């Protein structure tokens, strides 16, 4: 940016030089004065937004409530996670939520923001004065505030045996099992899943049968291992999930594709499994 300014200064007429030269230091000082005004305005911040956040404390158990917090959006980063961290740092340290990478790769900060499941670190704060409601993932048991119990979800993932299983050893023992680029391309759209649980907790079928229906995330991973050319237990994998409840509770509601923060389509992968079941 500074280079561009210098370029413009060089190219302009001498009469303009003085104004441009005055502009460069003026810009630097303007940011300093902006910072000063931000610090002084504080409470009279122009851009206040209210966040209604679900609170429930197991140490003082009562009814869960939506608590209001007002945030000045000028002092805050663009994402919902920035707002939550700001609230926790400055206003209420007891606010509890999971977070880790702040870049949408770990899947810890999955929660329901304004009715839609998503990652807090990837969801922008909607500008405007409307209140934003933040609640935990729907139909999951709440441990505290926005933290939910994911053990059932993880157990379902574990139950599909998400590892490579082979009957014959590798062609060159001790070396990698080879896979063509085409076969590797078949896994695109499935390997990127970060197990955030946004899709499974947005599926009404999963809400009504969380213990028996595997859910879109687990089925997406099941398809990932079924479609892996290096895996030799395809038939056994298909038979393991060929169940009225495990697989066929999916009625292609496709809320999962809508909720996925990584842009994956679990519904499509489930349809692929159903087709394989039909033909196999």
């Amino acid at each position: 940016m500074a280079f561009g300014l210098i370029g413009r200064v060089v190219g302009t007429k001498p009469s303009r030089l003085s104004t441009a030269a005055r502009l460069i230091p003026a810009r630097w000082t303007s940011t300093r004065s902006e910072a000063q005004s931000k610090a002084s305005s504080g409470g009279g911040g122009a851009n206040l937004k209210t966040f209604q956040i679900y609170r429930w404390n197991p140490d003082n158990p009562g009814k869960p409530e939506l608590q209001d917090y007002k945030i000045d959006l000028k002092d805050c980063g663009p994402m919902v996670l920035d707002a939550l961290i700001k609230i926790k740092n400055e206003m209420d340290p007891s606010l509890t939520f999971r977070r880790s990478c702040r870049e949408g790769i770990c899947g810890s900060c999955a929660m329901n923001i304004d009715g839609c499941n998503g990652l807090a670190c990837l969801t922008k704060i909607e500008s405007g004065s409307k209140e934003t409601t933040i609640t935990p993932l729907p139909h999951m048991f709440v441990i505290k505030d926005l933290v939910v119990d994911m053990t059932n979800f993880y157990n379902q993932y574990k139950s599909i045996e998400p590892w490579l299983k082979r009957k014959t050893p590798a062609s060159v023992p001790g070396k990698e099992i080879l896979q063509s680029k085409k076969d590797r391309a078949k896994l695109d759209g499935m390997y990127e899943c970060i197990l955030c649980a946004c899709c499974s907790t947005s599926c009404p079928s999963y809400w009504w049968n969380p213990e028996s229906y595997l859910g879109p995330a687990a089925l997406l991973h099941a398809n990932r291992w079924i479609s892996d050319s290096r895996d030799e237990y395809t038939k056994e994998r298909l038979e393991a999930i060929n169940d009225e409840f495990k697989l066929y509770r999916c009625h292609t509601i496709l809320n999962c594709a809508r909720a996925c923060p990584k842009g994956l389509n679990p519904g499509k992968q489930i349809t692929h499994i159903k087709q394989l079941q039909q033909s196999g």
Partner: protein
Amino acid sequence: MGASKLSGMQKQVLSLYRGFLRAARSKPTEDRKRIEMIVSTEFRHNSKEVDRKNFQYIEYLLRLGTKQLDQLKSPDIVSLSSVKVVASKT
């Protein structure tokens, strides 16, 4: 006649208690007494303090207890101990 009919949640709490006592039986004698002491004080304390209608909290405690019981059942776990924490207002 006999005791009034127990609700489903009450039965769950009792079966959890029974599960803890059974798990305690499989541990060495000294630890067994400690486990039984901790578990019984916890259950008795909660039965007095927690409101019978506070279903959300009771279910939360049941889930917590079930997880702790699964951990206790593992043969690697030898004993249970507890620390009393007093929440300060600061």
